[in-house]
């Protein structure tokens, strides 16, 4: 029989406001096994924890129940408290009487009744708890960063700086990501390339970092400290270690009319190409879909002009398998498609562009060599209209865009408007906004400069319609302050498209068993306290794959993720989750049903000798759980007909006891 202590937390008025905490602790006093029951203002406080520790010592408690907030909040806290008092941490159960009781029920009577029942369930469970000891597993001292944008680059550099090897996997032929496509950066207006490319070079030159560009992760197995990852290296038909990046091939290739992704299709590239001059690795890549040689064996020009002999038309996709201790997701973002916003005529006119396209149009390395020219006729635009919040902050019932604020648009639009007025003072620039959001260091000052120094016309109101009319764009919008409808004849319309997570994130999350929100952003382990960790142990989040953010925030998060990774890799051993499956070999049929449903391959079989009741011996096949691999989902326990398989910490008996207590 256990000696159980019950500790009911008031959580200020959070619980005590709707639950009669004294009545709860009094009622639970009578439950079988309970020898001590009390309540206190804040159980998680030092004083509260001391109450628990003292009671454990004083009453010789063998198990404790804390009726408080969600176990997702403070289970770990109270487990530590118990451990500090010499009680096994797994002899602690939490009755969630805040999130799942006091906060959702208004009536004191029903709230109290329910709190008592939840407490009884927890007591019933603790009565059947057994001390558990976590197993240990070694840590592979190597990290994987998925995504080679500024987030991935910074994370990799920081990890490598601490002395651990890091691999970056990037789907594009070069690292650099979105930042490489930008012209200037707000609010300082320094050139993106000038601050990014040195970091790219650092990555290339760091002997701790390997870059797998033009590659993707195809399989992830294992668990924290021990991931087995399969990386597909797509054939680029150019030997990376031989190519000098001289670019001769990219000038001679006869296939010239391929839309250049790097410039968002605003100019063309060849079938063999280097995305941009500062690409890392600076090697050419052959585009399989457009190369004549690869498609029908007729060409071979690049091989002829390559002095280094780097071209290899027979290259195949390669798969490499590597072990990692930690994985960082840094898959980044993309602007959303403008398909559902046809009122802005994006599909009808070349002169309606997205802000990222505008970046390329103003970039010295872009399709116009940095001159702001209309895509349709190459003329200077005299009137430019910027539209903010295109697809951001939409209501879900409108089913068009995203519900969230994309965060970066206000600032880059101010930047675009300012730069335009700076370079071309003869241009009229209008910015239609719903709200201008500038919380950030020097952000509002930047926006005010655009208005005050550069004379950008900021208009509170939204563009309702853009219609191409005779080579111009008729922009119809409302000015809410002046309460009038405007019609502006514009030469160029720039849409601040909402951003969304990269499409590769969803399948990656599935492979990593990392959770995502409905918008496909990775979920953090805790929104405030663990913002750079995924709930899946060993998986960390860097950059916009977790939510919209600008460059400084991304770099900060990248560093934070790196430090978490370093913290993990610095350990020699990891303590596992002791709530793992366990097979009772006396009952095991050896039928492999559990093995078939185990997502981790944690179950193996062995032939074991048993003494039979008639004193003979028999050999039987029985299951064995690898506790380091088991993650404790419990799928096997239900698949197992005989009930030989049980889950420590969530045993059949424990759950049944909870059911009984609730239904009593």
């Amino acid at each position, binding site marked *: 029989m256990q000696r159980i202590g019950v500790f009911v937390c008031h959580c200020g008025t959070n619980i005590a406001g709707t639950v009669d905490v004294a009545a709860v602790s009094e009622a639970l006093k009578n439950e079988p096994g309970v020898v001590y029951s009390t309540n206190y203002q804040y159980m998680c406080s030092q004083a509260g924890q001391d109450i628990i520790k003292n009671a454990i010592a004083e009453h010789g408690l063998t198990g404790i129940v804390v009726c408080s907030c969600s176990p997702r909040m403070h289970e770990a806290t109270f487990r530590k408290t118990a451990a500090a008092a010499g009680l096994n941490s797994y002899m602690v159960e939490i009755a969630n009487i805040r999130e799942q009781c006091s906060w959702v029920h208004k009536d004191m009577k029903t709230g109290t009744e329910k709190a008592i029942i939840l407490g009884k369930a927890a007591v019933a469970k603790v009565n059947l708890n057994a001390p558990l000891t976590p197993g240990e597993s070694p840590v592979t001292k190597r990290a994987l960063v998925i995504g080679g944008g500024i987030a991935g680059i910074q994370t990799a550099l920081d990890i490598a700086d601490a002395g651990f090897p890091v691999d970056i996997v990037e789907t594009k032929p070069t690292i650099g990501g979105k930042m490489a496509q930008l012209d200037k950066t707000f609010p300082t207006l320094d050139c993106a390339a000038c601050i990014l490319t040195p970091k790219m070079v650092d990555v290339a030159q760091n002997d701790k970092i390997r870059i797998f560009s033009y590659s993707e992760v195809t399989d992830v197995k294992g668990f924290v400290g021990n991931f087995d990852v399969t990386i597909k290296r797509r054939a680029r038909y150019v030997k990376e270690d031989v190519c000098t990046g001289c670019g001769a091939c990219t000038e001679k290739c006869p296939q010239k009319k391929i839309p250049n992704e790097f410039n968002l299709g605003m100019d063309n590239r060849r079938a063999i190409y280097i995305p941009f001059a500062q690409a890392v690795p600076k090697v050419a890549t052959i585009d399989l879909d457009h190369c004549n040689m690869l498609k029908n064996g007729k060409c071979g020009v690049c091989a002829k002009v390559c002095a280094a002999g780097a071209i290899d038309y027979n290259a195949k996709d390669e798969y490499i398998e590597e072990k990692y201790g930690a994985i960082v997701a840094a898959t980044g973002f993309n602007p959303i498609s403008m398909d559902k916003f046809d009122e802005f005529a994006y599909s009808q006119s070349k002169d309606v562009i997205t802000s990222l396209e505008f970046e390329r149009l103003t970039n010295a390395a872009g399709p116009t060599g940095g001159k702001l020219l209309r895509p349709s006729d190459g003329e200077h635009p005299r009137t430019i209209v910027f539209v903010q919040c295109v697809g951001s902050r939409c*209501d879900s019932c409108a089913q068009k865009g995203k519900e969230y604020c994309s965060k970066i648009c206000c600032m880059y639009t101010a930047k675009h408007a300012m730069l335009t007025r700076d370079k071309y003072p003869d241009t009229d620039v209008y910015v239609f906004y*719903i709200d201008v959001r500038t919380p950030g260091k020097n952000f509002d000052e930047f926006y005010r400069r655009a208005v005050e120094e550069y004379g950008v016309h900021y208009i509170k*109101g*939204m*563009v*309702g*319609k853009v219609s191409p009319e005779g080579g111009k764009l008729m922009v*119809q*919008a409302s000015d809410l302050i002046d309460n009038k409808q405007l019609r502006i004849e514009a030469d160029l319309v720039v849409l601040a498209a909402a951003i969304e997570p990269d499409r590769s994130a969803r399948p990656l999350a599935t492979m990593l068993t990392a959770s995502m929100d409905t918008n496909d952003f990775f979920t953090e382990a805790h929104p405030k306290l663990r913002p750079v960790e995924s709930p899946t142990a060993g998986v960390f989040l860097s950059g916009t794959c977790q939510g919209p953010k600008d460059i400084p925030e991304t770099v900060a998060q990248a560093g934070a993720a790196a430090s978490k990774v370093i913290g993990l890799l610095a350990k020699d051993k990891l303590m596992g989750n002791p709530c793992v499956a366990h097979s009772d070999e006396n009952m095991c049929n050896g039928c492999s049903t559990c093995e078939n449903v185990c997502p981790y391959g944690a179950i193996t079989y062995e032939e074991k000798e048993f003494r039979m009741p008639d004193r003979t011996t028999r050999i039987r096949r029985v299951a064995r759980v690898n506790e380091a691999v088991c993650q404790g989902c419990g799928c096997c326990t239900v698949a197992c007909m005989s009930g030989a398989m049980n889950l420590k910490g969530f045993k059949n008996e424990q759950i049944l006891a909870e059911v009984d207590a609730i239904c009593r």
Partner: protein
Amino acid sequence: MADNKKLKEDVLAISGVNVRKCMKCGKCSGTCPSYGEMEYHPHQFVSMVESGDIEKLMQSESIYKCLSCMACVERCPRGVEPGKLVEAIRLISIRRKDANRLTPDRISELLDEDMPQQALVTAFRKYTK
């Protein structure tokens, strides 16, 4: 005041619109083809309904200037549907007067070759209770 409250409730019930969703972007008014004709513009309908200023709207010609084209409904990023508010207020107004301004037997005289059918449908929505 109590009347105003009731009126607001009626408008909201008839239209099914949740005015609190509006984030005051003005895209409805930016999109409105009748903007110039209207004393109160679509975004004002939303904010005035929210503040209970419905009598003013009912007295205004604006409720008949609205073409019921529903462009504002289509384009509103928040799904607020200002056009439905206009319709609801119009409906209350017509009900109060207890007289349809258009009856089916008058249709034939209104018909001409250039009249799009949609206009008739819209007219019916606008002038009947």
